[in-house]
């Protein structure tokens, strides 16, 4: 295998903070990993566990969820609910013997373009070390 492994990271970004943050990273001409595949959602709490699992079992090497910082949610409390839910999703992932490090939650505000670029790069690097999504081999898709 000479070809370098390029992970695919499905990213659910909230419209009001993280997606705008990603936009800022772009308009500020910041370089960030092309592994990130951004999808806009209205709120991080709109992301049902089924989104995360479906993305993972459909072959994503990592799943990133971005929301506003606690207290800054456009809908006031959405991200607090996300936080609780995400903690459980990670636990269930562990219980199933899946790698819960492949799921990430990050708080990125609309003004944090550089942070978005940093998180994107760091996470891509982390996933590159973990390698390809193992469920691609253990269950056929």
């Amino acid at each position, binding site marked *: 295998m000479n070809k370098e492994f390029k992970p695919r990271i499905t990213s659910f970004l909230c419209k009001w903070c993280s997606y705008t943050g990603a936009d800022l990273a772009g308009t500020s001409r910041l370089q960030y990993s092309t592994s990130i595949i951004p999808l806009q959602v209205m709120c991080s709490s709109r992301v049902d566990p*089924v989104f995360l*699992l479906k993305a993972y079992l459909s072959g994503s090497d990592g799943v990133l969820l971005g929301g506003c910082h606690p207290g800054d949610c456009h809908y006031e409390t959405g991200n607090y609910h996300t*936080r*609780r839910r995400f903690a459980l999703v*990670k636990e269930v992932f562990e*219980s*199933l013997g899946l*790698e819960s490090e492949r799921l990430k939650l990050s708080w990125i505000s609309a003004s944090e373009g550089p942070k978005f670029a940093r998180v994107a790069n760091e996470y891509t690097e982390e996933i590159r070390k973990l390698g390809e999504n193992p469920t691609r081999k253990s269950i*056929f898709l």
Partner: protein
Amino acid sequence: MNTTNELRKSIKALIAEKKVDLFLAWEKGSLPLTATPLFVSTEDQADRAVFDVTCGNNLSIYFTKDRKQFANRKVGIAVKGCDARSVVLNILEKQIQRENVVIVGVPCDGVLDRKKVLAKTDGREVLELIDNGETVTVKGNGFDLLLNRNEILSSSCLACTYPDAQEYDVFIGDARGEVPNESRLKEIHDFQALSASERWDKTRNEYERCIRCYACRNVCPSCYCNVCFVDQNDPKWIGSTCDYTDTLIFHVIRNLHVAGRCVECGACQRACPMDIDLLMLNRKVAMEVKDRFGDIAGLDINGKPAMSDFREDEKQKFIMG
């Protein structure tokens, strides 16, 4: 039989005093191993009510799955400990109003799992079941077995912590009180101690048998979405096959949807035709909810279900950046 008589008496009293229009209880089933739900609206019908080891049905599912019938009606319901928690959960989730239900707690010593009885009789049909307290006699064509109660109880009952209704208007008989149940936690800890690949194999062994009949979802008192995510086809979240990808998504997501709302009544496991250990992951999530958020589903009628509540200062070590 004593409980049955007491139950009949209190149903009659509630109907005579016009406190309820309708009462949900159990009657002797047409098959010996399962009781049938009974809808009582007159005093005469109350004589058909029974309560014994076969009364596994969680009657609270009628509140959410048969909404029209219960809208703005005074309804009485006979509940075991787990059923009472479902009723409380329905009240907390605003599916029914507290003032419209009269909760009658019955003392529960556990209910049987049909599949366990049939395993004991080697699949031979059971024609009669007699509950002697500690033991249960099952009779059929050419056999007569005396079974220990613990051998045939539903696994949710063997691990039950709250056998009595915690919220009730009338309680008949003697309450058992809270049962400290270490075995329930031990099972989860043992499972967690396995390596990742062993956990993967173990869960795969269970969920791979699923035939997607959705019996578990249909009997679940906490599953009452108008359109379940497995039935949606635009977008289609889940394939329609019985491949492991699809069965895994179904079970894991159903589990997460009832997280903090599962009362561990074990109805799903009793309903499962493939004998899948559905409670394992439910218990694991319930334990996690209790440890992290300090909430036990359906115990506190003044509380809030864990997943619709939050604290601002929760730990968030897993968050990146």
